[in-house]
């Protein structure tokens, strides 16, 4: 493009972006249109990708198009494979996009749309995209090594051990929290429960279809599975209107929790081809399609946001989770801004597919931009709801009251008017008995999505179908995270136990499979049960714990990245990873301190213990005391482990910068590429 034209284009993007951000940030009082958020996000991402990723690529990482990547050097047709950059982008995005960027922003909307939106944009451009990008490049330069291996090599054995322990801890907490989200979305919902129950035989049928009828035709079987899922959604309406069937599928939260634990145990021990792989394919198919559809829906329908820019709960008294914007907004929204979990994907399958180093910005930085855009869509879906409705759906009964009248009175008193009749009409419109006390974010997101779609496709007559489609979409890929996550954690435990007793490390030895599956399911089951029985809804304590764990893993990833940058002799550019690292340390350590020691019993685990001990104890309070002590212990252990990695890393930086130790990075040797441009 002509240089002056390019300058003009970027000036225009700057003007539009600045105006949109100004509108989003300054506008008060009147509802604003969602397109302002879309415009602000698009311009920020365009700037970040065009200028910041290019700066990092040129000045810090020195991407070299002549250097052969592991996909070329170690090509084996299986893990290592030269792949088209767009294909790798799609593959990487499908792997990093999970329920996190949908749930976190919905929960953080209790502060209003502004804090979440700004954190998603700034966090993604300056932290999340940078982390994914640099970790992907460093893994490519090390033959596709994992984060834990790189941590061990670059920061020392302690770094590797802590990264490993942090991954296990995050998996356990993640599985518990996503299971809780699904339980809260499906409890007392025969329609939703029937639809999700049907996805299990549908996945099994897909497995048999793939294996016996049309071997290898995955896309075809996914389309078939999708059609069957749509029929199940349609059939759910009939189930909910048939009293005997409705009774069968109306389950309480504890019953759903038990079923999920049994399901995850079975899925972890079953052959992959039968359930896990077909469900994964189906979930990916629905996920990519629905995200695309939602993006089109938002742009075409350009709905109005009814949530204020800043709600009254910026003072820390929020009903969904207690705590002020700082630090809680920043740990509530992890995926979408920065997620430590992405560093595992960036150092997993993706580095083994990259054909050229110059394609890494598009895959690493670009896919995280796409994930961040999904988070912005979630903010929009939550904020199109009337604030009164949003708080009625997301507030636990323990905060707003057990009855519809009490809940609507509490919420209206906060300045967000809502009536019991309005909530009843909405519940009827979406085919539910009630929408009160549906904590966890998924039902509010589903309502918002149904609201957007029902403005065009099918009108309000299809509102119930859209709502249950959205619940199914979230529940389907949460179940995929549950079964895949339980299995991955099982393998990690088996790898570790194999060092103690070799047969335990054999992934095909059934006693080991059953024992480690039971161990991992029991571990997250404890937290899930705690959430299900918590009168405050569980999300209040579990989601921040998950956010802290996830951001602490990002801290480990950024420690590794900063260490490599300093060792490579580019210390003057280290602020690119050092600044987000310092920010994460401040945020996560402050949040951890609050969660453990804050004197407010709604925030601090230990003060809640003291509060409970002050009253006469009963079986419920005894369990809550135990749960809070366990949560405090887990948070403290995570912070202690990451502190050790930090100290180890800082010692290494000082030692290299003062010349006391030699700066040696463990990159694989340079081999010139033999790929011509057209071969990729």
């Amino acid at each position, binding site marked *: 493009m002509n240089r002056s034209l390019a300058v003009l284009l970027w000036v225009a993007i700057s003007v539009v972006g600045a105006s949109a951000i100004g509108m989003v940030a300054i506008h008060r009082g009147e509802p604003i249109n969602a397109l302002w958020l879309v415009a602000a996000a698009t311009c920020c991402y365009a700037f970040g990708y065009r200028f910041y990723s290019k700066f990092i690529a040129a000045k810090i990482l020195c991407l070299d198009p002549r250097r052969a990547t592991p996909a070329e050097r170690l090509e084996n*047709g*299986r*893990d290592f*494979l030269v*792949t*088209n950059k*767009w*294909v790798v*982008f*799609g*593959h990487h995005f*499908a*792997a*990093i*996009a*999970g*329920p*996190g960027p949908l749930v976190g922003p919905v929960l953080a909307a209790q502060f209003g749309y502004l804090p979440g939106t700004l954190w998603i944009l700034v966090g993604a451009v300056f932290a999340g995209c940078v982390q994914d990008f640099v970790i992907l490049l460093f893994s490519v330069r090390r033959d596709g090594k994992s984060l834990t291996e790189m941590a061990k090599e670059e920061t020392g054995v302690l770094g590797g051990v802590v990264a490993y322990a942090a991954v296990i801890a995050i998996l356990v907490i*993640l599985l518990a929290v*996503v299971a809780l989200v699904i339980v809260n979305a499906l409890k007392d919902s025969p329609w939703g429960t029937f639809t999700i129950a049907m996805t299990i035989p549908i996945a099994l049928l897909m497995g048999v279809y*793939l*294996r*016996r009828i049309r*071997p*290898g*035709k*995955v*896309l075809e079987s*996914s389309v078939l599975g999708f059609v069957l899922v749509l029929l199940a959604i349609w059939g759910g309406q009939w189930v909910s209107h048939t009293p005997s069937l409705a009774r069968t599928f109306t389950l309480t939260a504890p019953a759903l929790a038990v079923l999920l634990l049994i399901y995850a145990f079975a899925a972890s021990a079953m*052959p*992959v*081809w039968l359930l*896990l*792989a077909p469900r*994964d*394919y189906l979930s*990916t*198919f629905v996920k*990519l399609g629905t995200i695309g559809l939602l993006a089109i829906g938002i742009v075409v329908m350009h709905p109005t946001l009814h949530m204020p820019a800043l709600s009254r709960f910026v003072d820390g008294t929020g009903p969904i989770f207690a705590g002020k914007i700082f630090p809680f907004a920043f740990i509530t929204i*992890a*995926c979408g801004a920065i*997620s430590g*979990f*992405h560093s*595992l*994907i960036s150092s*997993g*399958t993706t580095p083994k597919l990259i054909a050229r180093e110059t394609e890494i910005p598009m895959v690493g930085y670009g896919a995280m931009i796409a994930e961040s855009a999904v988070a912005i869509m979630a903010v929009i879906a939550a904020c199109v709801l009337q604030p009164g409705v949003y708080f009625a759906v997301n507030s636990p009964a323990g905060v707003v009251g057990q009855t519809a009248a009490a809940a609507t009175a509490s919420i209206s008193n906060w300045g967000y008017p809502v009536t019991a009749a309005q909530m009843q009409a909405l519940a009827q419109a979406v085919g539910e008995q009630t929408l009160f006390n549906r904590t966890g974010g998924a039902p509010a997101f589903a309502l918002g999505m149904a609201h957007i779609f029902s403005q065009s496709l099918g009108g309000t007559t299809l509102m119930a179908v859209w709502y249950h489609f959205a619940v199914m979409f979230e529940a389907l*890929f949460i179940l*995929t*995270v549950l079964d*895949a*996550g339980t*299995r*991955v954690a099982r*393998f990690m435990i088996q790898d570790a136990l194999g060092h103690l007793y070799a047969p335990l490390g054999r992934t095909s030895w059934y006693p080991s499979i059953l024992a480690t599956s039971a161990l991992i399911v029991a571990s997250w089951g404890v937290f899930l049960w705690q959430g299900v029985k918590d009168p405050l809804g569980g999300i209040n304590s579990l989601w921040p714990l*998950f956010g802290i764990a*996830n951001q602490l893993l990002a801290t480990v990833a950024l420690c590794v990245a900063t260490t490599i940058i300093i060792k490579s002799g580019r210390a003057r550019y280290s602020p690119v990873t050092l600044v987000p690292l310092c920010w994460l340390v401040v945020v996560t350590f402050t949040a951890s301190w609050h969660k453990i020691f804050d004197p407010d019993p709604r925030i601090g685990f230990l003060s809640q213990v003291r509060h409970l001990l002050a009253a006469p104890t009963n079986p419920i309070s005894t369990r809550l005391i135990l749960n809070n002590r366990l949560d405090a212990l887990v948070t403290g252990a995570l912070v202690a482990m990451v502190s050790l990695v930090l100290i180890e890393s800082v010692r290494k930086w000082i030692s290299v910068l003062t010349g006391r130790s030699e700066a040696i990075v463990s990159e694989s040797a340079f081999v010139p590429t033999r790929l011509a441009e057209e071969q990729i």
Partner: protein
Amino acid sequence: MKPLRKALRILIAALQEIFDESAYARFLRRRQIDSSASAYAAFCREREAVVSRRARCC
């Protein structure tokens, strides 16, 4: 028209990679066998180690 065709081709290739159809095609080429129930079963066995350790992000 040409860029549109190219974009469509890339989209299909991405979907085939995401849904492991390309991996199966490579497996068949590598083993020099035709697609069949037993070939797909062998592919699933070989793929199991990769698929079952593939983390799904939050």
